[in-house]
């Protein structure tokens, strides 16, 4: 069974038809990548899945359950969370407070939350020394780690990531991709949107190429790297 499936999604901004029938499916425990040029509709796809964009048509299934009409904030307790484009950490909250906002909907006992916090900080040791610092004063790479850590604090089963490597120094980019693989190894299903197509395709069991709001190509990531279409369009 697929952890997450989107079926025939249509989204419009006024007259602009941003998505015209996007369908994709993410198998449980895998990494799935969506690549495409600027304005192809990648962010819109993720936001539509999270309920932030109104669908004119389409259906979203999470763990076999139809979640199309569930309000966005109620998807988090169901195990779906997004690391949004541009990180969007709460800059006037401390690192600790940002992480606690990730766990906002969890009713677990304190001890369990503390353990999870410790586990997340194990993935991002740089955050540990900065717990009382305002998130707005972190570097871009640190903010990306915080955004990922914040999402992980909700204990997701499916994690959506929108261009986590955007604007980062090469050293950080490698680190981000390593972390994505590490999170996946912990059993979290991942839907990854990237401009950095080569690296995303390398780690993706399944990948989709999005163009002007439509899926034009699908297949295992490494195979797409070799495909002529992807080569000419995105890898140069």
């Amino acid at each position, binding site marked *: 069974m697929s952890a997450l499936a989107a079926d025939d999604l249509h989204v419009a901004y006024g007259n602009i038809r941003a998505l015209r029938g996007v369908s994709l499916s993410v198998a449980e425990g895998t990494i799935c990548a969506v690549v495409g040029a600027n304005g192809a509709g990648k962010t819109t796809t993720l936001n539509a899945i*999270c309920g*932030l964009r109104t669908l004119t048509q389409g259906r979203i299934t999470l763990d076999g359950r139809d979640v199309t009409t569930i*309000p*966005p*904030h*109620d*998807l*988090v*307790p169901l195990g779906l*969370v*997004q690391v*949004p484009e541009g990180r*969007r*950490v*709460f*800059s*006037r*909250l401390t690192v600790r*407070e940002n992480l*606690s*906002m*990730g766990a*906002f*909907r969890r009713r677990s006992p304190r001890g369990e939350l503390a353990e999870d916090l410790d586990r997340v900080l194990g993935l991002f040791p740089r955050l540990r020394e900065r717990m009382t610092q305002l998130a707005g004063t972190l570097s871009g790479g640190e903010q990306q780690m915080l955004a990922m850590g*914040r999402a992980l604090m*909700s204990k997701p089963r499916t994690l959506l990531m929108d261009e986590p490597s955007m604007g980062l120094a090469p050293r950080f980019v490698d680190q981000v991709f390593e972390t994505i693989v590490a999170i996946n190894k912990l059993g979290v299903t991942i839907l990854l949107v990237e401009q950095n197509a080569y690296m995303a395709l390398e780690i993706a069991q399944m990948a989709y190429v999005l163009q002007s709001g439509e899926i034009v190509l699908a297949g295992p990531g490494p195979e797409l790297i070799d495909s002529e279409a992807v080569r000419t369009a995105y890898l140069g």
Partner: protein
Amino acid sequence: MPQAGFLQDWLRRATAVDWFLLALRIVVLAVVGTGFVAGLLHPRYGREEWFSFLAFGLTIGAIYALIALGYTMVYGILRMVNFAHGDVFMFGAYAACFSLIACNRAGILNAYPVISFTIAVIVCIAVSAGIAILGERIAYRPFRRGRSLAPLISTLGLSFVLEYSARGMFGAQNKSFPTMPGIDGIVAFAGFSVPRVQLVVVAAAVLTMIVLTLIVMRTRIGTAMRAVAEDKDAATLMGINVDRVIVFTFALGGALAGIAGLLYGLVFKQISFFMGFFLGVKGFGAAVLGGIGNIPGAMLGGYALGLVESLGPAAFLEGLGVTAPYQLRDAIAYTMLVMVLIFRPRGLLGERLSTARA
């Protein structure tokens, strides 16, 4: 020398408006300065009088601050002004008034003043928070999508509805507020004396603001409030129900306004259906003065407005030979407000708009 460069730059770029504002600054500073010096040369007030001006300024300032907090919290989250907030305050005052009257009828007001006061606090918080929540439902939520000015009109309309229903229910004349036992009289210490009620009001307001700060800075819902104020979509993605946080914010602001209504009644002993307008404008002014959207700013702005209003007439109007300077109290308050906005548009503690962007 960089200074000279700055001056040359300024001279080259200054427009007529810049020159006008510069002249305005000089004139205002000269008038205030002259009045201040003249007042010092012919002192009319002794230490005790100054002290009582100060105490009154802090008292009324505390009330302004409590009202200002409601404006600033709602603005911080929604970037909109709730013009019905003054009337939430008014209803709080009536709620407190009627609950104290009821306590008096039941014969417990004099026997158990602390219990009666607690009842009044609970009732005025409940009524004001309730009205604030209702206001959010009918005058804000329908207009939240889209950046129209509709909420401006709808909250103004709500303000009239509240005022005239209060007038219909409670009458157009002033209503006298019950006297609480134990808070009348004067407290004297170290050669100064203050009405006891002012001490009670200042203490209650400070306590309320400490509680508010703890809620906003230390609790889960308070943290969520700050997160929502900064980025609603990101907060939604974390599972926060933004609508609920907004309702909570209105309720919190309403509760503070309710307490302000109770304290106002204790100090001035008279309330009316129309007072929400005047106090609302002052509270909004205080919020803008402190930097709207900024919680410590609203507190500071409230006290600053109260102090200027109460010390200003004696400090420089009297020295200028103005007769009956206390009639000009409001004129001073609003003049200062306009001045601060000209010299420092973002208010005392406000951030630059570019960084304060939600």
